[in-house]
């Protein structure tokens, strides 16, 4: 059984690689390369897998999941500039692909201490673009 909860957060980013020329950055990232950055209302969907507890009938207690995602994710990215204020990006261009890997890694680390397993992290950048990784794909 899996359970999925989604949470909104708003953040800004600029897609720009220092390894590429100005022209190449413009070609690759287009309007996402705007020097002033821009923002999105993101959604992060967190999928947890496990057997429902025999007594409570829950895969994971909702309050615990909310607290965990709040502490590990929303506090890091909510109303932040992902280029400047998310040190875990460690120099990666904050595309939502990279953001998905980084946030999934952060969450997965914390899930190591719970009985439920993190199964999937999906980030919607807009309603039309979404990115997901299954935790089996993550390197520790």
């Amino acid at each position, binding site marked *: *059984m*899996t*359970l*999925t*909860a*989604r*949470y909104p957060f708003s953040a800004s980013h600029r897609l720009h690689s220092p390894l590429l020329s100005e022209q190449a950055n413009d070609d690759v990232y287009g309007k996402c390369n705007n020097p002033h950055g821009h923002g999105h209302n993101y959604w992060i969907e967190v*999928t947890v897998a496990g057997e*429902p507890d025999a*007594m*409570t*009938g*829950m*895969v994971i*207690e*909702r*309050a615990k999941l909310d607290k965990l995602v709040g502490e590990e994710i929303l506090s890091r990215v909510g109303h932040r500039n992902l280029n400047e204020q998310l040190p875990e990006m460690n120099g990666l261009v904050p595309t939502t692909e990279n953001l998905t890997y980084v946030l999934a890694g952060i969450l997965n680390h914390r899930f190591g201490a719970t009985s439920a397993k993190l199964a999937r992290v999906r980030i919607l950048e807009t309603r039309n673009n979404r990115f997901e990784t299954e935790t089996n794909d993550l390197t520790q």
Partner: protein
Amino acid sequence: MKPFYGISGPASNILSLRTKMLITRRVEFSSSHRCAVPGWSDDRNREVFGEEANPYGHGHNYVLEVTLSGKVDEVTGMIVDLKDVKTILNREVVEPMDHRYLNAEVPPFDQVVPTAENIAREIWRRILPHFNSETVQLHEVRLYETENLYVEYRGQ
């Protein structure tokens, strides 16, 4: 006959016979429930279930997505007649659960806490016998308790 992936003639039929697909039907029902373990104190239930433990109960507009898998019939081009799917989902799930207080009116939730997880398992149990043939199998039950929270169950 239209070409199938660029192949026309008899080969297209063979290909379509082999094509396994998933098909999903969505239905909605609105129910009230209360999540609490009988025998636990109010404080303990409040701690574990939060507002879901409100002694007076509360409700949700549940959205159920049932995904079936099967082969596309050569003649009809369908996995299953969706009218039949709708009839089964209405009879087994919507009619018994819609506008009901699950804890009091829908067994086994007089005994089992009606969390989204347990409701999904009960729905799976109720509809499995109807989608367990050579041509169509129950693939997944996805139950949204709210827009922001859903469970997925595949029978194990």
